[in-house]
């Protein structure tokens, strides 16, 4: 038995070392989310789904707003499959934020789908679709290495990306799609897919006062730590049309919340938006940098 256990331990150490080495060297490639739970607690955060995950670049903000806020800012955004504004996300944000922060900047990306009630939601009985997903299934959000992440989210790793680097999540949490196609036919097919998905959401999901209230609660909490802004990111007009069909008064609802909290709501999803979404929804690296700069201008103007 001793021989068996010893050999097994040696092999396990080999295996753990290999995994640790890969994570140390390539964590931004092999898992989009692992870094979000190994980075330290943060002063400033970008919150939302894949729109802000790809489209808002912390490095631009750090450069532009360094004197105005406690930076660096960290992109703590996930995907539409994982997050909505609600109690679970708020709990995760509370864990990620440095409790001593007084002058942080918090950019909350909002749109109808991250404030909708989904099929699995049962608010009365405290059942949230997002419970089982990241970041809500994580207790430890700033531990390096983070074994909890392995046990709960092992299936999100794709070590083959060490060889085929399709996308990279930078140390500041921003996801860069480094292998973006310029083929418009492919991009159009992506847009069609998003349209189909949103049309499906439109039929199945409902507008939610509950989630609006939770957004309000999130803002109230974050205001204790600095400046909060709400952002609706640039979108293709066909997607905006679906969202307006789903939630006609979305902008006025968000404006009401912003006014009640004395914060600003920047709506970039207008027909005259100068930004181009490669798939109708997301911004590529260049467009993301332009947009983040524009957002910094708006925040600076608001701050001054």
């Amino acid at each position, binding site marked *: *038995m001793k*021989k*068996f256990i010893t*050999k*097994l331990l040696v*092999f396990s150490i*080999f*295996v753990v070392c*290999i*995994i640790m080495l890969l994570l140390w060297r390539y964590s931004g490639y092999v898992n989009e989310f692992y870094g979000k739970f190994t980075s330290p607690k943060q002063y400033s955060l970008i919150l939302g789904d894949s729109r802000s995950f790809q489209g808002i670049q912390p490095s631009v903000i750090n450069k532009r707003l360094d004197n105005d806020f406690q930076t660096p800012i960290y992109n703590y955004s996930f995907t539409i499959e994982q997050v909505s504004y609600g109690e679970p996300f708020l709990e995760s944000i509370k864990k990620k934020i440095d409790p001593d922060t007084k002058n942080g900047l918090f950019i909350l990306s909002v749109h109808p789908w991250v404030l909708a009630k989904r099929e699995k939601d049962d608010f009365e009985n405290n059942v949230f679709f997002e419970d089982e997903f990241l970041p809500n299934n994580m207790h430890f959000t700033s531990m390096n290495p983070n074994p909890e992440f*392995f*046990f*709960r989210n*092992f*299936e999100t790793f794709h*070590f*083959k990306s*060490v*060889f085929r680097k399709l996308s990279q999540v930078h140390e500041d949490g921003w996801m860069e799609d480094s292998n973006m196609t310029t083929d418009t036919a492919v991009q159009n097919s992506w847009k069609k897919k998003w349209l189909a998905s949103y049309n499906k959401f439109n039929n199945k999901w409902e507008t939610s006062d509950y989630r609006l209230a939770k957004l309000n609660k999130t803002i109230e909490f974050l205001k204790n730590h600095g400046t909060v802004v709400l952002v609706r990111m640039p979108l293709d007009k066909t997607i905006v049309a679906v969202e307006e069909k789903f939630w006609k008064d979305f902008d006025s609802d968000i404006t009401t919340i912003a006014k009640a909290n004395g914060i600003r709501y920047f709506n970039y999803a207008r027909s005259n938006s100068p930004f181009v979404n490669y798939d109708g929804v997301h911004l590529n690296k260049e467009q993301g940098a332009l947009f983040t700069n524009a957002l910094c201008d708006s925040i600076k103007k608001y701050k001054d």
Partner: protein
Amino acid sequence: MVFNSFEFLLFLPIVFVLYWFVAKNSTKHQNILLLVSSYFFYASWDYRFLFLLVFSTVLDYYTGIQMFEAKTQRMKKFWFWLSIGINLGFLGVFKYYNFFVGSFQEMLSGFGVETDFWTLNVILPVGISFYTFHGLSYVIDIYYDKIKPERNFIDYSVFVSFFPLLVAGPIERATHLLPQIQRHRSFDYNKAADGLRQILWGLFMKVVVADNCAIVVNKVFENQETANSSTLLIGAVFFAFQIYGDFSGYSNIALGTARLFGVELLRNFAFPYFSRDIAEFWRRWHISLSTWFRDYLYIPLGGSKGGLWMQVRNTMIIFLVSGFWHGANWTFIIWGGLNALYILPLVIFKLNRKNTNIVAENSWFPSIKEILQMILTFALTTIAWIFFRSLTVKEAWAYVKKLFDYTAYGFPDADLKPFLFIFILLFVEWFRRKKQHGLELSDVNSQIFRWTVYLGVFLLILFFGASSDSFIYFQF
């Protein structure tokens, strides 16, 4: 809790440590631990069905004793049929009721009679076909006085519920597994080390071969109407390896896990794609089920004793029943029927036991004739697998028809990467074909070579493993 999950990676060492360190001095304690762990393992799928498993266990345990103690043949028969009836009744209700109702409705509808019978909205309890067959073999063996009933309820329950085999076999026999459960088990280094190798190989087969093939297969079968024939051919070949990697991979993990606890389970696969004819294939594929049908259906029906006609009839019956065992769908029945048709010429011309040895047993490589035989056998099974994989007979038929439409061939529109993993699988298994599994390296003296292979397989799993949350055979 599937074998390729982190939950299992936690569960297994905990049970292992408790088994060999806390309960090692007492067989009774070891068996209680195995039973509790097995019920925990099963409840992690759906705790509600645990009651069904316990009920089935109590039923067969009790009727086994009653049959043995029955004063008259009539009473013995009563207890026998009670057990068989209830066991098959559960299987019938959970697995086949809706199929029969649906088929009956369709038949009536064909005569212009529209009906709306009550159907069940239930999920199939995981592993029900496997543990029911466990129980049936035990009851039948007692009825025919081949074994005596087990008086120790814990031992019997472990026989039915031992977690490595609980959800997808191998289908064990009381004569093989029960004596191992009854006797004291001490740690055997060689057995445990080889068990780990078998688990590693099973994981490779599942997450690298099967799950990567599955990605392509799902796409091809979903878009079969628009896909060209070459794409369909690749989809069919990949499915043949998907199901092999999935089920044989599962079986390897099950057997390897059992060996960590000092238990040897029945071998389920013996490199079936190196078979030279269909009869050999069926001696090498899902062996525990094939032998179950042979012993409890084919032989009681008369086997080959009643002449050629009887042999043909019985062969047809076991293949059709085997198809039906896999699922309540005509696709499975046709899959079974096709295999019966493949094997019948061999039965009729008494060629079914021609290839009982290992292919190219005394040489490194097969002869041209053997290669052609293996390719033909593989092609036949692959065509049958199309029915197994398709959702309806109509879809399967359209798929097969298009495969033979030579004008529809073109450049395949499918990811061909899985061929690389299939090549690795076949390469390793070819050179290990005389062994129990692909990674049996007991005859390799160089420790450096062995460890290089382990790390190589681990890296393949790490870098190229795809993910799925289940095994195909769990649905059966």
